[in-house]
């Protein structure tokens, strides 16, 4: 049988008509993604961002390269999928400090529970009766701009004595810095302590402290900065290099900020207005402007994280009986709300909100607010269903 070559040739030519771009799957909208660099990085900065991205997203620790032996997660990306909020699967448990300004009780295994162990080892347990608090991993986008703010900008938002009488105070968490902390021009000390701005209790002063602590406490990996092995309490050889840590810190500093979806939709506009009206925006401060930074792309940028980076009394319902730094057990740092609507994309399709993921929807999270946020919560409840819906739409758009 002789086959018609013309037909075959035509079919081949038709195949060539497809451009390469048509062949590969489309990229999701930029506003649907949390990962990616901030605009304006130089080529050298992009290269370091890439190195940090690989270490953060792809590097997996296992027994052969330093995991544990006690640990919570096996990689940075395990807790922060797509740089978004984490899942209860990698929830952290902190314990050992029950009063402000007291050191964690290391003799009982604090400050963090390593609830997993490599084969042949036994994981840690919390002694009976010791209070603890659970932390669902936060999103890590936009952290560089928050890190770039001056302490004075944060202090300007504080109102410890509630002088304006709005029922909202807001205090910084003053933290004893680790040995490797090098104050920058924008840090201010108070009796040798510095303002924490990262973590659920704002217990980490900068992203280096946050990163080093996560490697050590979450993955059980030692570094030159944190050489103590969490399982033995003894020093050991560094299991992650200085350069890798520097790259990861750079990556975290230069991750882009979340992009709001449908900001002009009428319901979103209405919700944004109501958000301020019922005083949610008193703590979830919408707008900040960064000062000059050593990374030009972070300098003098106006951004919208919806946080004041301060601690607030959130009421007895959210008091877990444990704490960090100078925070009271009932005080929590105002979490940034940017990227909130994208949380299900990194939390397995669901919402796990508030510090420990107990709220399974944005509305439930609002209704669990107490303490200084009680008035705002009550005012939310008094809104019509339509108005509530507008606020929720607005929050989902962030």
């Amino acid at each position, binding site marked *: *049988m*002789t*086959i018609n*070559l013309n037909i*075959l040739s035509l079919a081949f030519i038709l*195949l060539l008509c497809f451009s*390469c771009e048509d*062949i*590969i*799957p*489309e*990229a*999701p909208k930029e506003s649907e993604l949390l990962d990616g660099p901030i605009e304006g990085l130089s080529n050298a900065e992009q290269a370091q961002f890439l190195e940090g991205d690989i270490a953060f997203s792809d590097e*997996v620790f*296992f*027994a*052969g*390269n330093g995991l544990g032996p006690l*640990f919570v*997660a*096996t*990689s940075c990306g*395990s807790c922060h*999928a*797509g740089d978004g909020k984490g*899942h*209860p*699967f990698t*929830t952290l448990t902190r314990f050992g400090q029950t009063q402000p300004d007291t050191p964690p009780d290391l003799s009982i295994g604090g400050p963090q529970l390593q609830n*997993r*162990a*490599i*084969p*042949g*080892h*036994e*994981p840690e347990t919390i002694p009976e009766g010791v209070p603890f608090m659970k932390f669902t991993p936060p999103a890590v986008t936009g952290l560089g701009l928050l890190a770039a703010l001056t302490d004075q900008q944060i202090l300007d938002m504080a109102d410890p004595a509630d002088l304006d009488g709005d029922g909202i105070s807001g205090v910084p968490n003053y933290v004893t810095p680790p040995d490797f902390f090098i104050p920058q021009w924008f840090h201010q000390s108070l009796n040798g302590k510095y303002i924490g701005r990262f973590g659920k209790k704002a217990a980490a002063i900068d992203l280096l402290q946050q990163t080093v602590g996560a490697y050590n406490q979450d993955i059980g990996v030692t570094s030159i900065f944190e050489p103590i092995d969490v399982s033995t309490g003894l020093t050991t050889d560094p299991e992650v290099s200085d350069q890798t840590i520097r790259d990861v810190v750079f990556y975290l500093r230069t991750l882009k900020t979340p992009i709001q979806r449908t900001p002009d939709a009428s319901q979103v506009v209405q919700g944004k207005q109501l958000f301020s009206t019922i005083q949610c925006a008193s703590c979830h401060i919408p707008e900040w402007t960064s000062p000059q930074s050593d990374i030009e792309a972070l300098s003098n940028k106006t951004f919208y994280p919806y946080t004041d980076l301060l601690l607030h009394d959130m009421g007895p319902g959210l008091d877990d009986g444990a704490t960090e730094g100078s925070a009271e057990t009932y005080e929590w740092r105002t979490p940034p709300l940017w990227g909130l609507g994208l949380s299900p*994309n*990194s*939390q*397995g*399709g*669901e919402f796990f909100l508030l510090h420990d993921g107990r709220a399974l929807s944005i509305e439930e999270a609002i209704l669990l607010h107490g303490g200084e946020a009680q008035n705002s919560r009550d005012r939310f409840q008094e809104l019509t269903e339509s108005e509530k819906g507008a606020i929720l739409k607005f929050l989902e758009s962030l």
Partner: protein
Amino acid sequence: MNKLLLIITVFSFSLTAKAQIDSTLLKRVPVDTAAQKGMNMDAIYNRPFLQIGKLPVSVGGYVEADYQYIGEDGVTEGHTFRIPRMTLFVASSIHRRIKFLSEIEFEEGGDKVSIEFAALDFAFHPLLNLRGGIVMNPIGAFNQNHDGPKWEFVDRPIAMTEMLPATWSNVGFGFYGKHYADEWAFGYEAYLTNGFDNSIINNSENRTFLPATKQSSERFEESSNGEPLITGKVAVGNNKIGEIGLSYMGGIYNTYEEDGLVLDEKRRLDVFAIDFNSTLPLINTYIVGEWAWVKVDVPETFTQQYGDKQKGGFIDFVQPVLRGKLFGFNKATLNIAFRLEYVDWNVGIFKETGDKIGDNLWAVVPAISFRPVAQTVIRLNYRYMRQKDILGNPPASIGGIQFGVSSYF
């Protein structure tokens, strides 16, 4: 240095070879996989060889090369050309009832060289043959019947290479045999070999990953725990219907003891697989598939990142659409084909939420293949995959074209 000597030796044999195509090959109908008459267990010998003069030694091999343009969620690494593997076979008839075959694979341009198969076979009876050396563990069918030129797809099935560890071979001994009755054939294989090690739950893949053990060449020197891996398979074939096989592989995988000191509990691994192939009458559609279940004893206090159950498989449909003289080849065949594959590396639910664990992938691969001769294939695939992370977040979309050639030589 050893690798270099190996290459020189094999090529020296090749230079003295006189081209003479094996009679098995001459019987091949040019549809490749659909035309196989032997059982999967015969695949290791059902290859074209070149006789080397009057020596009782024959050589052969195959090569694969491909191009791909694949992207994930709009991001691509661009155009990539690869030579995934070149494999050389050396077979020898030592006696009419004793034969030897070896398969040496050069992967990634020679960066990795491995002996995939090197075994002596002693035929005592059709139902009782002893095989010893480096043997292919008969789990599923693809592991034994994996030669690139036999398939219409550029990539090997993901479940068989990224969940099961194809190609998976170990040092060991065992028996195999066959019995024919009219159109029917029955075959069995049973081997004891070295097996897996701790790396299946201690690896950079961040998941239970049986192929991780392949990185350890120590398994050709000693067992990781002194416990043999048991692999067994039974298969039934009918010349008009097809073949179905059931296989099992299992044993202790971890180093639970070293120098007499107990390091951990004994932890088991068990794999079950079913494979089949058939050719539909009248339309000659060839269908081949395989599905496997993996069960691994992962310590309760470890992390659910490493799953204790896995499952996955593939099914291929190959439809010859044109046969005849084409581009100067008298018995050329043009096929259209379609592969559907699925892998779940972590079957289970999260302890924390009760939600289903993700870490799975499915793929569809439509293909066109052209076989100018039976032992050579030119293939064009479009691959589309959706892969979920462990949390079950919205899946990554991966897709692109793959073009490749593969041929026995």
